[in-house]
C-alpha cells in the first residue's frame, strides 16, 4: 500500500510538471494550429537561466526563479515575433518543422553552456528546500514534488480565471475559434500570438525548474523529460486544455507505477521489459489510446445548432 501511495505521489508530481508543458503545447496549437516542438527546449532553457542566475551569479533564489520565468516568457515572445510571425499563412507543416529548428537551436546553445557537469538549481531553504523530503505515514515526499504539484494547480487555476474573465483571455479563445472574425472585432491577432507564446514560455520555465530541481540537475538530457508532455497532449487531444491535464496525469501515473511495479511484475511473468521501461511506457499508452480515440480523449468537440 505504501509503495502504491509512493508511486501515486511521484506520478502525480510528474503529471503536474508534464501538464505545464502540455498546456503550452495546447495553447500554441489552439492559436496557430501548429504543434510547437520547441516547448521542451523552452523548458530546459528556463531551467538554464534560473541556474545561471542563482548559482553562477549568486542572485537570491526567489529573484532568480522569478527572473528566469519572466525571461523565458520574453524568449517565447521573441521567438514568435522573429521566427513565426513571418510564417503566418504558410502551410502548417512548414511552421512545425520551423519549430523543430528552433528547438535544435535553443538546445545547442544551452548544451554548449551546460557542458559535461550537470548544473544545479538554486535552493531557497538550505535544510528542507529542493533537496529535502518529508515522511508522511511512510510515504517519502520530496518538497520539490510537493511544490511542483501546488504550483501547477495554482497556475492552472490562474489560467482558467484568465481565460474566463480577462479581456485578453477571451480574445485568445475567440482567436482560436475564428481568427478572421476575431480580427473583425479589432483584436490584434499578432499580439495574441505573442501573448500565447509568452504564456507557453512561462509555463515551460516552471516545468523546466521542477524537472531539474534538487538532485535531478540540469544536464544535456533533461529535455527528454519535458518531451514526455507530447504523448500527454496527444492522449488528451491537441486542442483541449482539460485534455492536456488528464493526459499528463495518465502519463505521470503510468511512469510512476511502472517504475515501482515493473520488477515484481517481471518476476511474476518471468519476462523482462528491460531497464528504463518506465520512460517508454507513456508512449505505449499513447498508442493504445490512439487506437480507440484517434483524436485523443478530449479532442475537438463542436457546438452546432440543430
Amino acid at each position: 500500500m505504501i509503495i502504491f501511495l509512493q508511486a501515486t505521489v511521484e506520478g502525480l508530481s510528474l503529471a503536474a510538471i508534464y501538464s505545464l508543458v502540455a498546456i503550452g503545447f495546447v495553447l500554441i496549437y489552439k492559436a496557430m494550429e501548429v504543434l510547437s516542438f520547441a516547448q521542451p527546449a523552452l523548458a530546459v532553457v528556463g531551467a538554464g537561466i534560473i541556474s545561471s542566475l542563482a548559482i553562477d551569479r549568486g542572485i537570491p533564489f526567489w529573484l532568480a526563479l522569478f527572473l528566469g520565468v519572466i525571461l523565458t516568457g520574453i524568449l517565447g515572445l521573441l521567438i514568435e515575433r522573429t521566427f513565426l510571425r513571418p510564417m503566418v499563412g504558410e502551410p502548417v507543416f512548414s511552421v512545425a518543422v520551423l519549430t523543430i529548428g528552433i528547438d535544435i537551436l535553443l538546445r545547442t546553445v544551452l548544451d554548449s553552456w551546460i557542458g559535461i557537469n550537470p548544473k544545479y538549481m538554486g535552493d531557497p531553504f538550505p535544510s528542507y528546500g529542493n533537496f529535502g523530503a518529508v515522511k508522511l505515514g511512510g510515504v517519502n515526499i520530496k518538497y520539490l514534488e510537493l511544490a511542483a504539484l501546488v504550483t501547477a494547480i495554482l497556475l492552472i487555476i490562474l489560467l482558467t480565471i484568465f481565460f474566463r474573465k480577462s479581456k485578453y483571455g477571451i480574445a485568445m479563445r475567440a482567436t482560436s475559434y475564428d481568427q478572421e472574425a476575431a480580427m473583425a472585432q479589432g483584436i490584434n491577432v499578432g499580439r495574441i500570438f505573442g501573448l500565447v507564446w509568452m504564456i507557453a514560455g512561462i509555463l515551460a520555465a516552471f516545468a523546466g525548474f521542477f524537472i531539474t530541481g534538487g538532485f535531478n540537475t540540469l544536464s544535456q538530457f533533461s529535455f527528454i523529460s519535458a518531451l514526455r508532455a507530447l504523448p500527454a497532449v496527444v492522449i488528451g487531444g491537441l486542442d483541449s486544455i482539460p485534455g492536456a491535464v488528464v493526459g499528463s496525469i495518465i502519463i505521470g501515473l503510468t511512469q510512476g507505477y511502472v517504475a515501482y511495479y515493473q520488477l515484481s511484475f517481471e518476476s511474476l511473468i518471468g519476462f523482462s521489459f528491460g531497464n528504463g521501461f518506465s520512460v517508454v511506457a507513456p508512449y505505449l499508452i499513447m498508442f493504445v489510446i490512439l487506437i480507440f480515440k484517434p483524436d485523443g480523449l478530449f479532442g475537438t468537440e463542436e457546438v452546432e445548432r440543430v
Partner: protein
Amino acid sequence: MLAIENLEVVYQDVILVLRGVSLEIKKGEIVALLGSNGAGKTTVIRSITGLLDVQNGDITKGSISVDGEDITNLDPSKIVEKGIAQVLEGRRIFSELTVIENLRLGGHTNSNDIKDNIDKVLDLFPILKERSKGKAGYLSGGEQQMLAIGRALMSDPSYLLLDEPSLGLAPKLVDEVAELIQEINSQGVTVLLVEQNANMALNISDHGYIMETGNVVMDNKSNMLLNDEDVREFYLGLNAEGTKRKSFKDVKHYKRKKRWLS
C-alpha cells in the same frame, strides 16, 4: 464621410476583383450596395476593414478614407479603433463562447465602456438578454444575427458595415432586421448595407450602388433606383405590366459601360 476612390483589388496576384470602384458613404445615411454573387460587394467591405490579407487579396490601386483620413491598408484593429465596425457575412459569432463573452469581444478596442455598451445592446435586443449566459452556438439563426450586429455595435462605431444581414432568415425576421438597421441608423450610426435582398435594402436606404463584375454600374437615390426599369426587372423581379420577360443580355445597356467615377 467614408469614401472609396478608384479601388482596385487583386486576389492571389491574378484575380482582378474590383476594377476601380468608387463609393461615398455620407454621415448619417444608410447606403445600400447591391449586386449579384461575385460582383465584389464583400471585397469592398473587406478592403475597408483591412481583412483582405486573410483571403490573400491586395489593394493595387485607389484609396479609402474616413472623414478625410486615409485608412488604406491599415491594420484591422486600427480600423476598428477609427470607428468602423463590420458584421461579417454569415454572422461568424463565436459559437463556443457565451453571448456576453461575444459582446465583450466586440468591445475589445473600447474596453472602458463595456458595461454600458452591453446594457445598451441588450436593451436593443431583448432576446439576447434572456440567453446572455448561454453558449452563442445554441441561439437561433435570427438571434445569432442580432448577436452579430450587437457585437459590432459594442465598439461604438460611427460606421457600421453589414454584410448580408438577411442571409438565411425568414421573411418576417428580415423585416425585423430592416427595422433594427433603421433604428441603429437613427441613433447616429452610418450604415453600409451589402445585400442580395434588393427590395429590403432599397426600401430602407437613402442611396444605392449597384455593382457588377467589379464595377459600380449604377448609383442613385434609393427611391430612384426602386423605380428604375432595369433595376426593377433584374433586382426586384418585377416586369413592366404586359411585357414578356426579356433576355438578360438585351437589356443590360449599362453592362459594358465604363464608369471611372460615379
